[in-house]
């Protein structure tokens, strides 16, 4: 697996985005799945950037991706900040009206909806989220 590790700061969002999308495009992944990958990546990275290191200053985030012969695109995002399991987060109430709707919580909801598989593990003081996207069409 290829990986890119950089400080968890907003200014590197674009670098991570190009890193993953260039690979995914090279592997011929269709536009719809590219959109989903990009969305999931942004949601998880901004989460790490905003919340992972709030107590202890700054730290890194590492993104890995690979495309397997089983037509699956694998993405993982790791940080060394405070424990956060996105799978434990409660979904926002999507039935509320404009006035009642809370502003937060949508990002993780989108991650769970867009990726075909999401798993989380806390290992050696780090959070690692693994994601898998089933590719239906590979453009050649």
């Amino acid at each position, binding site marked *: 697996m290829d990986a890119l590790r950089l400080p968890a700061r*907003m200014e590197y*969002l*674009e670098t991570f985005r190009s890193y993953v999308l260039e690979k995914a495009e090279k592997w011929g992944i269709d536009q*719809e799945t590219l*959109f989903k990958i*990009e*969305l999931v990546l*942004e*949601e998880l990275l*901004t989460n790490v950037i905003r919340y992972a290191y709030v107590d202890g200053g700054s730290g890194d985030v590492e993104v890995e991706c690979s495309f397997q012969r089983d037509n699956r695109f694998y993405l993982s995002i790791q940080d060394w900040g405070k424990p956060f399991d996105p799978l434990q987060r409660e979904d*926002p109430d*999507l*039935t*509320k*009206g*404009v*006035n009642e*709707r809370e*502003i*937060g919580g*949508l*990002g993780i*909801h*989108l991650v769970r*909806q867009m990726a075909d598989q999401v798993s989380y593990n806390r290992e050696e003081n780090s959070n690692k989220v693994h994601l898998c996207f089933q590719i239906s069409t590979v453009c050649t």
Partner: protein
Amino acid sequence: MQVTFNKEGNALVVAVKGRLDALTAPDFESQCSSHIEQGHVLLVADLTELEYISSAGLRSILQISKKLKQEHGQINFCCLSGIIQHVFSISGFDSMFSFHDSVAQALLQYER
């Protein structure tokens, strides 16, 4: 991201081009807010050229909408592409707002 504002009758058409993400959404929100503060409270968001939206973009839309409600205004949407429509739908936005196939249809809602 590029936003163009066009006054059409009593409504303001807001055409968004490009990406509404964590980097661009704050700018989109503040541009819309300043128009709302100038008294434009009936908005049509024309999303024909919107290529990408994340939760940051959705949050900015929700904030704008909350602000409009306070001013007794409203926002409705038109011309969403398939994947953008999908993001709106799984976020529960399809039950909060009205969606149309063209700017003209969206404007009809505001005709007195």
